């Protein structure tokens, strides 16, 4: 079955707005910036079965920037892992959808993440596990650009290359913003592509990581590296808050900010092109 990925992105963005707007606050910027990557993975590339979420040999996605949990939940709900109504429980006491991803609470989540840097090493461990089991799975991971300031990211990068984990395809959500300001101001990670190449990874630099065709092409290209002996990093140059003008304009202020239900409704009209 093939999906209209542009429409899927709109659906995911609207559901992110709905659940964060319902709650009144959330990590909106870094959720909206990763939507295209999630749509391509869950609606096109990954070998998964929402009706059998623990299927052996399935491809896995580990969202190391765990604060993008709401974006992953919106994606999983749209893909049929659970009822969309559950999205409204985001961050409410007793919910199965906590702010940061939790493999023990949420159907379809493959790893508990949130303490930055750790999820990426976990993904490397998962990729090693898949290699040992020889099950042919592809392991995908998403890290943040601010997260890339964590030393553990580079420990994991070194290990993945040294162990030739070419079943690992990672993304950097390079939206250039973090909590205290721009990444360049706070503690610059540039030149990013050169760093990953120097660590022994295939690197694909995507000019616009919020352009669905460019992301699709990048993942297809990355999959060709399956027997290259190298893991692949896809650098997605994205816009934090992408899809909702006033959130985009907040810049680093959109990392974790208040969103009213009215603002969410207006944003949904904007995303749907109804304004």
């Amino acid at each position, binding site marked *: 079955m093939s999906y209209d990925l542009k429409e899927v992105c709109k659906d995911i963005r609207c559901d992110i707005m709905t659940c964060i707007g319902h709650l009144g606050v959330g990590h909106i910027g870094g959720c909206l910036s990763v939507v295209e990557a999630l749509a391509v993975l869950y609606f096109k590339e990954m070998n998964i079965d929402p009706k059998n979420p623990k299927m052996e040999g399935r491809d896995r996605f*580990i969202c190391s920037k765990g604060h993008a949990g709401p974006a992953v939940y919106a994606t999983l709900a749209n893909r049929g892992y659970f009822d969309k109504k559950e999205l409204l429980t985001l961050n409410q006491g007793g919910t199965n959808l906590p702010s940061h991803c*939790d*493999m*023990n609470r949420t159907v379809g989540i*493959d*790893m*508990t993440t*949130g*303490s930055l*840097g*750790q*999820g*990426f*090493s*976990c*993904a*490397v*461990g*998962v*990729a*090693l*596990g*898949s290699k*040992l*089991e020889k099950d042919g799975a592809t392991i995908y991971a998403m890290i943040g650009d601010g997260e890339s300031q964590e*030393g*553990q990211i580079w*420990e*994991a990068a*070194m*290990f993945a290359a*040294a*162990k030739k984990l070419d079943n690992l395809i990672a993304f950097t959500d390079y939206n250039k913003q973090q909590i205290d300001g721009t990444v360049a101001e706070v503690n610059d990670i540039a030149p990013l592509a050169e760093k990953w190449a120097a660590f022994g990874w295939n690197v694909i630099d995507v000019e616009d990581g919020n352009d669905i065709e460019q992301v699709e092409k990048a993942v297809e290209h990355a999959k060709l590296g399956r027997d290259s002996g190298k893991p692949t990093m896809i650098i997605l140059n994205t816009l934090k808050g992408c899809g909702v003008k006033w959130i985009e304009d907040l810049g680093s202020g959109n990392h974790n900010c208040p969103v009213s239900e009215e603002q969410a409704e207006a944003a949904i009209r904007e995303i749907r092109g109804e304004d």
Partner: protein
Amino acid sequence: MEMRAVYAACLAELMEKDKHVVVLDADLGKASGTLGLRAKFPEQSFDCGVAEQDMASIAAGLSSYGFKPWIESFTPFATRRICDQVAISIVYAKRNVKIVGTDPGIAAELNGGTHMSMEDIGVMRSIPGIVIFEPVDEVQLRAAMPVLNDYDGPVYVRLFRKELPKVFEEGYKFDLFKADTIKEGKDLTIFVSGMLTADVVTAAKQLAEEGVDAEIVNVHTIKPIDRETVVASARKTGTVLTVENHNVIGGLQSAVLEALAEEKIPVVAVGVQDRFGEVGKLPYLREVTGLTVENIIAGAKKALSLK
């Protein structure tokens, strides 16, 4: 036999039986005695290099794929250095990872203060749900290894690397959650774990010559502590001494005090008095930290005087 050799031999047996048992080192395979496993089990034994944080989270990832990882480093680097990775990647995420810290407390000897954890039990004990085990001798370690491997959850193992005097007899039956009463007595209870257990046995013999009948309870599992045994023994004898190769804050004494919080029973501690370690050989380090047989006897007498 050295404890690390027993540890590695037990691991080899477990790896032979189950290809999902894997070992991860952080450039201390030689020190931990596990380097030899690499040749025999190339698909079950990995070196992460000097990257303990990465090692801990990789193990969590492997665990999510059905593997049963054992990770190793010196105690400070297996605990305080990777506290967050242990807490979040492993314990919070409910991953089945065994964390082995070698050369606890003064056992780090010539590596000195930087490598000498006086706080590792305290660090790990405050993480919800983790199990903490410290073997006394090779007999207990050998009995414990398959049990630890089968236990589906995170365990911190505090492992002395070199040879230790045997306290337990062959045929010893091990229960992970049950403290072992090594010697029954009526005058006081001495709770002890790990390398100092043999010293407590020696001290108890000397105390016996002076007419003091000490009960010795080996608390091999410091968390969850066997509250039932601890409380019953303390009630029976009416006074307590704890003996530990660890800071008296956060370790065995703290665990025993928590278990006895509702009892009106005095507790005296022989342990490291809230200080860092320093370089030296064991006899010197025992003297400067007070972990001597003489001090254990003095502590026992103090406990008796408070009865």
